[in-house]
């Protein structure tokens, strides 16, 4: 019988255990992937499916106003969408763990709460990075030819993963707050109007002026436009507004703001589990 659970209380030990526990919890997701490869493959290929639909079916209509190739225009948008969809993954996982008692079991173990969140973070970020790579490769196969200079590519990937990291904290918060399957479904439906009311798929120049401005103010537009500017996805859509002029700044500021708001809110939600 194993009774020796010696107390690792020195700070270095604590840090070592934090890393070990984080890895164990992330490994749990990787095990899921191995146990159901079909579902994972579908998740990674879904953005490719969307890309095909937009290019093949809608490219002719939406692309008219962009001047250049619609593929070059829409690819940064599709990559932004891929990161945005991470919200659903995080939210669903957090909500399922909370409702099935897995969260409580973690909380009844002598591990730090930080490891549980960090494990989720590692798993979700790796998942989304794979999705990003798959989508980008599929785009290249479709004929997407971005202007790739190493610094611009690094910056574009950085902006996209930063958006995903912000979605992680929104997802944790929503997943802890929304208890029912109906609530989860509602969020899954609500992501669509948010995607369409942006420059992710559609050039805002084709919208009425007031609507175009609202669309350009979206955090998703900021990320898509910033990536377009970095990778040469045609001219800034919708002409020169304050939002498109400052897209790179906004692509960093919006996620930063979301993190500043939702990270403490998520921590508060975890604490409120004790009330």
């Amino acid at each position: 019988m194993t009774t020796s659970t010696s107390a690792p209380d020195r700070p270095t030990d604590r840090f070592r255990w934090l890393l070990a526990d984080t890895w164990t919890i992330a490994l749990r997701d990787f095990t899921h992937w191995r146990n159901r490869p079909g579902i994972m493959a579908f998740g990674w290929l879904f953005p490719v499916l969307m890309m095909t639909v937009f290019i093949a079916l809608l490219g002719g209509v939406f692309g008219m106003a962009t001047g250049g190739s619609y593929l070059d225009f829409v690819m940064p948008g599709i990559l932004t969408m891929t990161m945005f969809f991470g919200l659903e993954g995080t939210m669903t996982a957090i909500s399922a763990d909370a409702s099935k008692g897995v969260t409580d079991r973690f909380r009844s173990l002598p591990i730090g709460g930080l490891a549980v969140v960090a494990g989720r973070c590692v798993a979700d970020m790796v998942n989304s990075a794979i999705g990003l790579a798959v989508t980008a490769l599929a785009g290249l196969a479709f004929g997407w030819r971005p202007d790739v200079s190493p610094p611009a590519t690094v910056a574009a990937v950085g902006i996209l993963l930063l958006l995903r990291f912000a979605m992680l904290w929104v997802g944790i918060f929503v997943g802890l707050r929304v208890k029912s399957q109906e609530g989860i479904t509602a969020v899954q439906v609500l992501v669509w109007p948010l995607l369409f009311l942006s420059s992710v798929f559609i050039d805002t120049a084709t919208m009425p002026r007031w609507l175009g401005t609202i669309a350009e103010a979206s955090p998703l537009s900021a990320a898509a436009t910033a990536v377009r500017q970095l990778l040469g996805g045609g001219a800034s859509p919708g002409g020169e507004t304050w939002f498109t002029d400052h897209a790179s700044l906004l692509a960093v500021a919006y996620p930063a703001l979301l993190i500043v708001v939702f990270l403490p809110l998520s921590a508060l939600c975890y604490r409120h589990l004790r009330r």
Partner: protein
Amino acid sequence: MRRDGNELAIEARGVRKRYPSTGAGEPPALNGFELTVARGGVHGLLGPNGSGKTTAVRIMTTLLDLDEGEVQVAGYDVASEGRQVRRQIGLVGQYAAIDEEMSGLQNLMMFGRLSRLSIREARRRAHELLEQFGLAETGSKRVSAYSGGMRRRLDLSVALIVDPQILFVDEPTTGLDPAGRRDVWDAIRTLVRGGTTVLLTTQYLEEADQLADDISMLAHGRVVAGGTPAELKAQVGDDWIELVPRETADIARVAELLAPWASGEIRSAHGRVQLPVLDRTNSLLATASALRDSGIAFEDISIRTPTLDDVFLQLTGSTATDPLADQTAASPA
């Protein structure tokens, strides 16, 4: 890790807990909860839905803060020494808190690693537990394919990875079929033989009777009675056999024939005979064979058990209804 001179597994004094969502006019979930559990054996916390069982367990396992009072588990204060408490306890909650997308072995390995076992040690312990709980053959299958009873047993085994001093088991058999229930009971009995103290919550009188050495009865957020199962049952009254003869005229004869098995006063009313008995199954067999040759025809014969509602009505001092008068009483089994 045990603190010197502390022979109590659990000690709770004057615990009050009101959820923030509780309405102003409603009573708190726990209202002066007191509990003393000695080390070793099974202590049953018995109460109907909404009596505060789960709230009490969540406070004792440091998942929930208390408003007032003091709780010590394994000699550590749950409010200020949560981490130490968590090193001494295991928790099996109301829902099987295991990962459905992983196999039983993968679940045990993960929780073993999180409980500070080395990979090799975690694997050895996982196989040991799968063996002990009769899951060796299904250990590599995904949990989503397990039956309810198998999930519960896996859930129990996860809580036992590091051999906790005190194991909290919250309504372990709710929703299980009789076979699954028996499996879980056997698993808990095995644990206790290994020296673990078990705090078991249940709403089934029969379950507490089967497993617990001591029972505390909970109603409206406080313990209203305590003692051994036999002591409590004596307060509540006996089981009874209810017989409905086809001819009302036979009632008197039935009562006369069954008199030797009665543990109390036989009642005859509304076309039925109600016979209080001590040993329900043997009494049924004995009375059945006594009646077989009498030539009396019966519409119905059944065993009745006082329900928890009857118990609580009696113990909380409300208008104590006569359990024999409750015709809708159903056995919890």
